[in-house]
């Protein structure tokens, strides 16, 4: 069963996403901690197939955080590294979206 890691500092929102994804028969692990130094997060990054990151909080340096997450998720095994999806409830500038695209990260707006 595919494993999805949800990184979201908004607990209610994170729970809502996790519930929706579990309904699709996916294994979901939610994480509020953004420190990539965390060994638990590192282990989860190594084990999951998809990473969903809520980038709605504009005060966070998301591009730098995502670069670190991508580096931490890089693997040298028989399995491909996880694919990333960013979600936002607030409008982000096009440059931000272009940077995400260059990193291979997909981006969606919640309506």
């Amino acid at each position, binding site marked *: 069963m*595919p494993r*999805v890691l949800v990184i979201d500092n908004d607990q209610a929102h994170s729970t*809502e*996403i996790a519930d*929706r*994804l579990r309904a*699709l028969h*996916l294994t979901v692990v939610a994480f509020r901690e953004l420190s990539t130094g965390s060994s638990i997060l590192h282990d989860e990054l190594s084990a999951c*197939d*998809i990473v*969903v990151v809520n980038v709605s909080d504009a005060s966070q340096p998301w591009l730098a955080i995502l670069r670190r997450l*991508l580096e931490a*998720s*890089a*693997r*040298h*095994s*028989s*399995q*491909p*590294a*996880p*694919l990333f*999806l960013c*979600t936002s*409830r607030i409008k982000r500038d096009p440059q931000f979206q272009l940077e995400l*695209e*260059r*990193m*291979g*990260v*997909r981006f*969606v*707006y*919640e*309506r």
Partner: protein
Amino acid sequence: MRDSLDPVVDGVDLLLAEMRGLKSQGPQLRIVHRFREPGMVCAPGEEIAIVYLVYRSKFYPLRLSLALRMLIDYLAKHSHFPQSASQIEAGMRADPFYVKHGTNAMLPTGLKRRISRSAVKEYVKRLRLALELAFRDVGLNLDPRQVIVSEPTVMNEVGYRLKASVEWFHCSTQTI
């Protein structure tokens, strides 16, 4: 009825489809042959002009020399079983496509390379490096050793196999 989280669920669905494709078929490559003669496809005399990584509908050229383009084309055409360096050399020497590579271009110096058994291991390393650079450019977090796969035998011989979804594109003229 759709709600505000539907784009997230749809996005995850899309990534799952992408992930399954990468796991089962590997990345998508497009190999371009030019100097095709009318009515011919993959015929001797054509040139392997360029190899692209195709990712999310965009084309990224792999930085490959002539010998590496020939090797990846050969591995792509024989991806159903792993081949040792000796088998690769023998296969390429026996195939008129590689023996007469690029002769339709009518160049006095030719566009040929002979791939020797001893060079294959080094060429495989360089192919992986070119793939790694392309993966980095596109943001695809994939290990090139999962694409140019080394498969050990019960002896010390290693077989090489390309795990990728490959399509060939042909140009009749010199243009790409």
